């Protein structure tokens, strides 16, 4: 009985593999297993290789793995590319129809799926046959699949339900016939499993924003961020909100700033090229002290780069990318639930700090799905920060309201168009307390200090600090691993592997990239033997920023920038190598 199992299906793009994989993942999640579901794809629409991996466990799983139990291959290329990932005794499932040849060391389970599908009346049943076969090979009962099929197709016709059931059963039968005792046996789902949803980061962030009162999304399509706009177009109109596809990223951010100026929580979502284009308007929002939220779904850069590959190479652009010096806060969720929470947090921070809040998402977080307990609207508190009071404004009278009044916090109440006597000028040129443009030197010093104070120290919300770094692991670790974004899943697992080798290991997940939690990081590094920063880029961007902000100590970088994902074994292996080459004693 296995506690965890991995299923993979590969083939050509545009052949419907995604819906087969989706069905499989959805049912597995509903059964009560924890699912982590990811894919690789290419920057073309049809043709080109694609594959989908479903990792399922009785405990939470959060990373890619190269240990596949069953690989369903729809073409020979998938076999050639992917069979190396099979575990010992791994099973290769294929349609005999395309005359698959399997490399040595893999166990081929091939039968004529297309033929059976035709027998059942439609080649479309091939997918369900593959699912039935795969479930059988993995040792998962068919009941859950049947129930799902029934739910989904009953409204259409009972015949379709029956045909799908037959497909599942035939697939399972044929596979069992061929596999015999070679099948795997997944342990049943944990008994206490509550309901969970299976959702990707883009959708989770859109829902988080919605729960936080975001009512407008202005965006321009781009892989892998488009789903934020697409999700918003689905749900926002239902709640009186709106989502508009703009003509480019310059206008997308500009419209968001306009909406926020007028009092509506608005956000945009983009990827690297869009972030580059937004640099000017980010500085503008910063100097105008207008809150705005921007999701950056990082992908392989620079320029068009590798748009369908994971990378975390926009940290510099997000933190330091604009001309001049303007405040920005940068958050970095690493899991689906963090994505939901951070989207909401971003709006509260924006409204309290009156500056852009950027979410450093990445392709892995945005696209891969994972099981999470259902989000609740009540998990989100809405905190709109300092607002001008309409009655007070009226009492104040004309020409008195100071939008940029000196306050101890450096943030002052804002008024919204429509509030009498709240009129002011929000300008990208340097200005005094009422917003009037001035080049006075003393005013300039104050305004610069005021704005930039937002990006130093610890973020506070409702009197509570916002955790910039989350530590999990052993006390006084020999090895401290620092990471962020979707890479954190592999790093957590790597820590487990290293611990299995007898090491004391800690993992620090950076949750706030700017203002970087310098003091906390320094304390962690000081308390650890060796520190490694693990990130998906070539320049070691987080490590660079840490040094720039004065963090010091023995800090190595583990980098990957070839478009493939960090895997836990790989991270653990590279850390062991690094320790050895440093002459340190890797315990165990």
């Amino acid at each position, binding site marked *: 009985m296995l506690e965890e199992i991995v299923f993979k299906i590969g083939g050509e793009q545009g052949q419907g593999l995604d819906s087969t994989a989706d069905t499989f993942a959805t049912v597995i999640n509903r059964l009560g297993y924890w699912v982590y579901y990811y894919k690789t794809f290419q920057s073309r629409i049809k043709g080109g290789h694609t594959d989908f991996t479903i990792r399922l466990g009785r405990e939470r799983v959060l990373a890619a793995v190269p240990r596949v139990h069953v690989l369903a291959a729809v073409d020979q290329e998938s076999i050639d590319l992917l069979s190396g990932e099979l575990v010992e005794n791994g099973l290769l499932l294929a349609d005999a129809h395309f005359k698959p040849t399997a490399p040595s060391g893999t166990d081929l389970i091939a039968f004529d799926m297309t033929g059976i599908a035709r027998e059942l009346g439609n080649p479309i049943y091939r997918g369900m046959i593959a699912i039935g076969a795969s479930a059988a090979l993995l040792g998962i009962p068919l009941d859950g699949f049947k129930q799902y099929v029934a739910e989904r197709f009953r409204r259409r016709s009972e015949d379709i339900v029956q045909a799908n059931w037959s497909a599942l059963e035939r697939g399972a039968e044929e596979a069992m016939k061929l596999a015999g005792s070679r099948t795997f046996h997944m342990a049943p789902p944990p008994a206490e499993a509550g309901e969970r949803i299976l*959702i990707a980061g883009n959708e989770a962030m859109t829902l988080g924003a919605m729960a936080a009162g975001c009512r407008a999304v202005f965006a321009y399509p781009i892989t892998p961020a488009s789903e934020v706009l697409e999700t918003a177009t689905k749900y926002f109109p239902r709640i009186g909100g709106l989502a508009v596809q703009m*003509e480019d990223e310059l206008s997308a951010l*500009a419209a968001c700033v*306009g909406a926020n*100026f007028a009092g509506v929580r608005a956000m945009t979502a983009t990827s690297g090229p869009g972030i580059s284009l937004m640099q000017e308007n980010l500085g503008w929002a910063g100097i105008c002290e207008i809150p705005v939220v921007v999701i950056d779904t990082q992908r392989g850069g620079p320029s068009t780069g590798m748009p369908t590959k994971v990378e975390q190479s926009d940290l510099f652009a997000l933190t330091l990318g604009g001309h001049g010096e303007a405040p920005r806060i940068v958050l970095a969720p690493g899991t689906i639930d963090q994505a939901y929470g951070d989207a909401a947090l971003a709006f509260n921070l924006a409204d309290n700090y009156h500056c852009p809040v950027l979410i450093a998402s990445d392709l892995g977080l945005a696209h891969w799905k994972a099981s999470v307990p259902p989000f609740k609207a*009540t998990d989100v508190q809405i905190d*709109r920060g300092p607002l001008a009071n309409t009655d007070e404004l009226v009492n104040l009278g004309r020409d008195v309201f100071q939008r940029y009044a000196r306050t101890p916090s450096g943030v002052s109440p804002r008024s919204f168009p429509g509030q009498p006597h709240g009129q002011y000028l929000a*300008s990208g040129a340097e200005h005094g307390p009422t917003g009037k443009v001035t080049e006075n030197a003393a005013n300039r010093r104050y305004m610069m200090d005021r704005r930039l104070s937002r990006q130093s120290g610890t973020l506070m919300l409702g009197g509570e600090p916002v955790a910039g770094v989350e530590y999990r692991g052993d006390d006084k670790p020999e090895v401290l691993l620092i990471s962020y974004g979707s890479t954190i899943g592999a790093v957590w697992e790597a820590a487990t592997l290293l611990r299995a080798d007898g090491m004391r290991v800690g993992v620090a997940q950076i949750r706030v990239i700017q203002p970087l939690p310098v003091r906390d990081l320094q304390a962690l590094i000081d308390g650890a033997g060796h520190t490694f920063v693990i990130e998906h880029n070539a320049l070691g961007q987080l490590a660079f920023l840490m040094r720039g902000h004065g963090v010091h100590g023995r800090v190595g970088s583990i980098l990957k920038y070839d478009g493939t994902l960090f895997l836990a074994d790989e991270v653990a292996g590279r850390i062991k190598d690094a320790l050895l080459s440093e002459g340190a004693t890797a315990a165990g």
Partner: protein
Amino acid sequence: MTTQQPAYKISDYRTDESSWWCPGCGDFGVLAALQKAVMELAIAPENVAIVAGIGCSGKIGNYINSYNIHTTHGRTMPVALGVKLANRELTVIAAGGDGDGYAIGMGHFVHALRRNPNITYVVMDNQIYGLTKGQVSPTSMEGFETRSTPAGSIEHPIRPLQMAIATGATFVAQGFSSKQKQLVEIFKQAITHRGFSLVNTISPCVTFNKVNTYDYFKTELTDLETIAGYDPTNRTMAIETLMAHHERVTGIIYRKPESVPFEDRLPGFRADGLATRPLELNEREFDQIVMSYR
């Protein structure tokens, strides 16, 4: 947000900002007409949002007692869209120069036309870059000598009015900064038009444009009211008249009476200002959406 109808004074729309413009600059006339128009329409200062571009023209917001947002160069259109969709009860007026709107801002301008939100766009057209001290602009005439075209401009000037109509504009007008009465009337009609209104306003730069001066325009411009039978709801007539007069006309050139603004066509968008509504969600609705991901 309250719809009082007090009689406002022109001073209600003024700030105590000192002059950012050269004496005699055409922009003063645009400012005066705009203030007069909102006053006569009795729109409370707090319900006016001016979205200004970068340039001499863009400093118009400094002078108007209203909510003002001074954007980055060329981005008035999307900012104004954001403001309007956030609170459709506001009177949103975008204003900027010919460079701001027709050079760097050209793409946004075309897309604003196409969307047709209820926004008034005032282009203060001096056929030159004023603030950067006199370079060629998209409306500069061929052969015009500037700092950046010492041998004379070799580009065809843009034809914003024809272009707007061809692109599907629902309100297109042109005024002249020193023809106050007509300009006030144009602004009033533009503001009350339900949809996007382009008001190209000839606004001479007395410092850097020594060709397209007040005197030049006094003889160049034809008032559409003097053209017998001119019908601003006739698109073909509008285009032909613009062609015949090389766009040198003033008045309301084209208006589509059946215009429906963008915001009215947005799915689920409501009649009150989004900004004034509470942020809390209907929990049950949210739960339903969340559970659709099961």
